[in-house]
């Protein structure tokens, strides 16, 4: 099982995602904005980061770029309600490896995660 970082300013969204991921046997840490995400990612060295986009302080795109600029190995999967192709492109350019659109089905989340978890 893997170490995951869940980043979302919505406490509701974080709780649901953390509960589900822990039920799948993963170790999960959290952050409520992009700035904290960078700090937690450096400290906890997660395998994968599930990153929201629209957040206060530092948004998910900027946080992803900052994490990649620090040379951290974590793979970033954007998990967002933003349905614009331009947002997907920005995420990829910032260093995200995948994009999951909310609301998502649990099977889709797990399939996306499996693609990027260490083997």
């Amino acid at each position, binding site marked *: 099982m893997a170490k995951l970082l869940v980043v979302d*300013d*919505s*406490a*509701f*969204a974080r*709780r*649901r995602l953390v509960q589900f991921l822990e039920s799948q046997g993963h170790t999960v840490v959290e952050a409520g904005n992009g700035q904290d995400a960078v700090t937690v990612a450096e400290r906890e060295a997660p395998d994968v980061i599930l990153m929201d986009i*629209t*957040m*206060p302080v530092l948004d998910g795109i900027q946080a992803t770029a900052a994490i990649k600029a620090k040379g951290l190995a974590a793979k970033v999967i954007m998990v*967002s*309600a*933003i*349905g*614009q*192709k*331009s*947002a997907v492109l920005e995420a990829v350019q910032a260093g995200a490896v995948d994009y999951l*659109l*909310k*609301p998502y*089905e649990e099977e889709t989340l797990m399939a996306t995660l499996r693609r990027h978890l260490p083997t």
Partner: protein
Amino acid sequence: MLSTDIVQAFRTTTEYVFTQAVQVPLETCPSTDLPDNAVTALIAVTGSLEGLVLLAMGRATALAVAEAMTGDHLSPDDELVEGVVVEITNMVVGRTTGELERLGLRCDISPPALVSGQRVEVAAVGIPPVTLGFQSRLGPLTLRLELRRRGAQREA
């Protein structure tokens, strides 16, 4: 005045998002005023469209929705009751930006804000609202669009 295709984008996305996220069907119905003690979330929109989008539901409906999504029994004061309204609003408006992009409209949205209290009135100045009503077996909800095309004249 917002065009029909923009209003329809918000309407169909609200139905889709709620139905998928809550796993309870949501249908359009005649709109009503926001309930006095509504839980309301607000998102600012900028870009090709500018203004506010508000989504509101009564506290009992919000509690039922939160319990449906978490599978837990919650107290009416649980922060998740307000949190679920915020999250659904975020998903509705976020997803709709994708539909708006297909209409040639590029919009950015703010993080959602929660509006609480009795008889609170929030309105974008000079923008006539479009109010959409929805009904589910968990209760009604209201989506209010206070949006105009960028560069449109402010209405007196």
